[in-house]
């Protein structure tokens, strides 16, 4: 049923467009799956910190104590940086009618800001 064959120029453009769109879909779903887990853990962490009246100092201390915490929040930040711009891309397209290279460039910048800001925050807490 599915056999890859050599392509002519228009077919190759169609192939590239299909792969680009399909990668966006897969990355958004994969990052959503990661976020589902990360958000639950993050909320549980907040509730724990509030119920045990942990101070900011105590929280930073725990971030330093175990390398898994910075690793977890690094994963969280990467998932957000992938997921949010892809979602905004759909919103921009469907609600504002914005699409094309300029929109994608702006969304890539948003991804970089989220990634940079998030990693900076994780680094500051864990460093």
């Amino acid at each position: 049923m599915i056999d890859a064959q050599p392509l002519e120029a228009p077919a190759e453009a169609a192939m590239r467009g299909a792969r680009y769109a399909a990668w966006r879909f897969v990355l958004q779903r994969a990052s959503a799956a990661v976020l589902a887990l990360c958000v639950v853990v993050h909320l549980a962490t907040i509730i724990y910190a509030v119920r045990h009246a942990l101070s900011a100092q105590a929280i930073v201390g725990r971030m330093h104590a175990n390398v898994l915490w910075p690793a977890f929040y690094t994963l969280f930040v990467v998932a957000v940086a992938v997921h949010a711009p892809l979602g905004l891309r759909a919103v921009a397209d469907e609600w504002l009618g914005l699409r094309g290279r300029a929109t994608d460039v702006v969304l890539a910048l948003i991804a970089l800001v989220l990634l940079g800001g998030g990693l900076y925050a994780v680094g500051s807490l864990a460093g």
Partner: protein
Amino acid sequence: MATPVEDHPRPHPPARGRNGVEPTFPVRIWRGSASGAFQQFDVPRRASQTVLDVVTHVQRHLDPTLAYRYACRVGMCGSCAMSVNGKARWTCRTHVDAVATGATLEIAPLSNLPIVRDLVVDMAPFFDKWAAARGQFKPTATRHDEFAKVSPSSPARRAIDATIECIGCGVCYASCDVVGWKPDYLGPAALNRAWTLVNDVRDGDGVARLRAVAAEGGCQSCHTHQSCTRSCPKHLSPTGSIAGLKRLVAQALVKGKL
């Protein structure tokens, strides 16, 4: 447009009110193009009356310039689909009793398609998208080959059973939010057709069709609102078909076959 049909004598006289006058109810019908407006008619209220009966009454007795489309009148052709009180439906299979909430009935052309006039829409964009989704069967065998043997119980054939009854009425397309927001979205019917052919073991257009439905405006654009599945008069699940395409596209991508 409405096909002129002779108005046959009714086998039973219509019910009469106390004073011998047939009771009527107000019906608002869209007139003109996209910039048109609703026009109200008073239509006799009859037993077992369908929405198509109402529109036909208006065209034959109140305003012969009303444009609408129908053919079979029994839910086989799909040409009489209109928006009834805001929901896309087959008017021939919709009883007034079932939809006339309150006292009025509002009948409009299908959403998401260009209006030609009154209740008639241009279905060309709808069927163009079937073609864009490569909805044509591409045979792999010739007349000299043996007939393909397809087991009715095979998973692929059973998947086709769930989709094949689509008659292209456009109700799902008119009900889809994403089509309204994203005009190049292929829509539920075209993607349902593509899924039907993807599961056809005799078809030879697999990769090209997957690329067509994976491109911008393809199956990934579906938000799974399920408006298409809820509104389908044939009780099909285009949402399920689109989910199948999403899975297949993702698998083909990861395996380097897209």
